[in-house]
């Protein structure tokens, strides 16, 4: 495959910029499409990257997403600067959300974002420091041993 040696892409995400929200995930989707990644895997990546991106748009000041590909896996690391998450265990619960009324009216804040990431990732690690920011590490396997 074209990424035998591994590939890495870096994207900047601006907090609060709803007009551009989803752009990074669309770019990720294009990259995976161009590399001929299995559409079933690409769809799982689209879900996790979108949810992770939206979390930055909704809650953080800024964030950076790094997409790494090697023959075994797709890895996404998203680090943001923002308020952080006080209770990551609670944040992972289906239905739990701290979204504002305005975000809810737009159809966000259903408390499904992080659970969606967990369901679609082979590995998902969430760490956060209150007042500093949050880090998401996501792995989706490409190999037959993965969940594809």
């Amino acid at each position, binding site marked *: 495959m074209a990424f035998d040696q591994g590939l890495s892409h870096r994207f900047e995400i601006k907090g609060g910029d709803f007009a551009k*929200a989803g752009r990074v995930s*669309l770019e990720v*989707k294009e990259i995976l499409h161009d590399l001929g990644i299995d559409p079933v895997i690409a769809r799982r990546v*689209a879900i996790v990257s979108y949810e992770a991106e*939206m979390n930055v748009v909704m809650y953080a000041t800024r964030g950076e997403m790094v997409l790494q590909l090697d023959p075994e896996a797709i890895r996404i690391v998203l680090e943001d600067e923002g308020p952080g998450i006080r209770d990551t265990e609670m944040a992972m619960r289906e239905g739990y959300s701290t979204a504002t009324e305005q975000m809810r009216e737009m159809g*966000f804040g*259903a408390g*499904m974002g992080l659970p*969606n990431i967990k369901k679609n990732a082979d590995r998902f690690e969430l760490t956060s420091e209150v007042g500093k920011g949050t880090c998401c590490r996501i792995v989706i396997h490409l190999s037959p041993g993965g969940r594809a």
Partner: protein
Amino acid sequence: MTLKEIVEGLGLRALTTHECEDRQVTGGYTSDLLSDVMANARPGNLWITLQIHQNIVAVARLKDLAGIVVVNGRRPDDETLRRADAERVAVLGTEDSAFRVSGRLHRLLGDS
């Protein structure tokens, strides 16, 4: 069934201009929650919603949806429609409620 046949069958109004009428529609998904659509809609589904802000375009593209049906006579702003055209996402309008258009689509497509 193609998008064109559904547009005609349900009397939907095209709000975007690009040609994607040959697109096969695999079913429908009705929801106003974007994460729900991300999690549960399937490729080729027609998404029925009252949401009209720009983010619906990215969701439809990311999920490879056949198009978006905006209900209750609502209309996305011009910027959203421009973006939908640029991303080749069909946006259709109806005066029907989400319940009614979902029922009519279900009747057309069967239990998909």
